[in-house]
């Protein structure tokens, strides 16, 4: 190790210390909790060591429901929101007039609070004794009988959750992608035009590869974000997510720690570790796939 790398390590040290104290150590600790049966925070005692917590969690119908919900959420919202954001960004970058106005409008949802947006969604979708809600009113125009999206059937609730998630993640993605599109040098398009490339070929062979690093960034963070979704479900369906069948994995962890069924740090830890493994696996797959399609 030469003098220069000593210095480099020294500069990295502060960040490294914080990472170790607040990330690596707790992760390690959580892993240990997850192996300790019936761990009790107050008395710091446990009854045994083994894989019992994992067995319990994996057989818990609430957990299975939460995993299912989370996966559906991820699989539906990540591709749809990314593609939608791409289409909107392409639209935005191909207009000149009012572009700034539209950009601002599309970015507005990003600065509004999750719970506030959730409230708005509830008003739009919920069916109460007094009103069937705006969306149902709209549906009734097409002779579709009213559906309770908030307390009704599972698919209706899932639809609202996905809709809501896409709605909230869209602004940031649009922001990133309009930036990425604007940074592509005009000369590439000119060159392609002179060479007679069709619009589709220009898009697929030039635009897409050029913005692929940003797209990839959005897909990875989208996956991770969706796997960690929790507040969205709370905003729509209230805190008792198990009862409404709309819990997510993070929601399950929270419930195990503090919820009505709370006080089970061992189960919570196992669920958290399982989530960690899932996210890690998916991210690794993403990285492997990206090697082929992302051009830096």
């Amino acid at each position, binding site marked *: 190790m030469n003098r220069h790398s000593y210095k480099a390590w020294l500069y990295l040290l502060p960040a490294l210390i914080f990472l170790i104290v607040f990330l690596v150590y707790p992760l390690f600790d959580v892993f240990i909790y997850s192996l300790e049966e019936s761990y009790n925070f107050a008395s710091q005692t446990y009854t045994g060591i083994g894989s019992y917590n994992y067995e319990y969690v994996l057989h818990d119908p609430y957990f299975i429901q939460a995993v299912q919900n989370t996966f559906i959420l991820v699989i539906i919202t990540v591709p749809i929101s990314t593609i939608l954001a791409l289409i909107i960004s392409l639209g935005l970058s191909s207009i000149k007039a009012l572009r700034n106005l539209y950009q601002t409008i599309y970015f507005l949802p990003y600065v509004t609070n999750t719970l506030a947006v959730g409230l708005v969604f509830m008003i739009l979708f919920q069916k109460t004794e007094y009103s069937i809600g705006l969306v149902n009113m709209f549906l009734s125009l097409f002779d579709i009988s009213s559906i309770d999206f908030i307390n009704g059937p599972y698919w209706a609730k899932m639809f609202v959750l996905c809709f809501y998630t896409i709605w909230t993640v869209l602004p940031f993605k649009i922001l990133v992608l309009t930036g990425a599109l604007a940074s592509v*040098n005009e*000369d*590439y398009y*000119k*060159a*392609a*035009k*002179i*060479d*007679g*490339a*069709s619009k589709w*070929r220009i898009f697929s*062979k*030039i635009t897409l*590869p*050029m913005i*692929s690093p940003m797209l990839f960034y959005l897909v990875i963070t989208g996956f991770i974000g969706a796997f960690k979704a929790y507040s969205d479900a709370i905003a729509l369906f209230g805190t008792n997510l198990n009862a409404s069948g709309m819990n997510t994995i993070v929601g399950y962890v929270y419930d195990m720690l503090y919820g009505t069924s709370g006080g089970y740090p061992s189960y919570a830890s196992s669920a958290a570790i399982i989530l960690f493994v899932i996210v890690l696996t998916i991210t690794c797959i993403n990285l492997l796939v990206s090697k082929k399609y992302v*051009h830096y």
Partner: protein
Amino acid sequence: MKICLENVTKIFAKSGKNGQEVKAVDDFNLVIPDGELIGLLGPSGCGKSTTLNMLCGLEEPSLGKIYFGDEDVTNMPPELRQVGMVFQNYALYPHLSVRKNILFPLENLKKEKKLSKKEMEDRLNNVANLVQISDLLERKPKELSGGQQQRVAIARALVKMPNVLLLDEPLSNLDARLRLNTREEIRKIQRATKITTIFVTHDQEEAMSISDQIVVMKDGKIQQVGRPQEVYDNPINLFVAKFLGNPPINVFEGKIIDGGLYILNQKVLDGYKINNQDVIVAIRPEGFIVDDNGSFIANKQSLEVMGREISVVANNDACVTKTFRALVQGEDIAKLAKEDIHFKLKRNKVFIFDKVDERRLNDE
């Protein structure tokens, strides 16, 4: 293919609050014979790039017509014009290998023009041989040097066998030595392919060295068109005289009195058929001869010895710049010891311009 531009004008609309209409190209008339290499030359903002863009179809002229051969291409979209273009920054697609970059234009061809794999491969190999990049085909653009990228860009422009090859500042991203090689290379490739080629540059040396004809532009207007040597020897106005030549031409204030040319009340040359008036005199650096009987007197500032010749930096009160530069033979060094140096002037290196509109005054 012969190219003809008739009264081509490009006006850009106002932009911004206090924006003004900009006439980027103003009544451009030019006939480019088949197979020639033409250099569009001018300072930045003179409209040369806009002209190039109108030739390739990225911009449409506001007025006027453009013909390729007999075909009117004024409003034809770029993809139908059969032009190859090399951009200043080369615009090589960074995510594609050299091979794929070059094949890109061929893969765009549709229907009856569509080529088989074999034909594409043949064309690729031909053009790669021509510009000598056959061993670089699998590399990505960023793994190439500037000169190699340049060749790839030329290959990509040539592979579709265009009627016209357009080059936008082709040498400006290369270092000085590579520039010399590359311009020779461009000349050779152009000679070999016999494609009518138009290139844009702000570097007069570049334009003069390889062009069959140069077109000097200023403020959207053509100043002068001609063979490089012709334009150099016979500039039509002061701008052209100043723009061509390195070191640049020296400019002095002078007077014509009874056919004699006076600088600082000294008669330096005689026999002009120009009416008595104040004039601008421009003298090429190589137009000075050290001669003790010479009537042009300058105050020596410094000497720059370059072996074959000596550059004398001197001043003279009639000079419009602080100092001027004279190139004299290396063997004259002994005569340059004094402070005040006397010069005789070579008549064919001295140009006289109108003081008001800076147009060349003919002495015939």
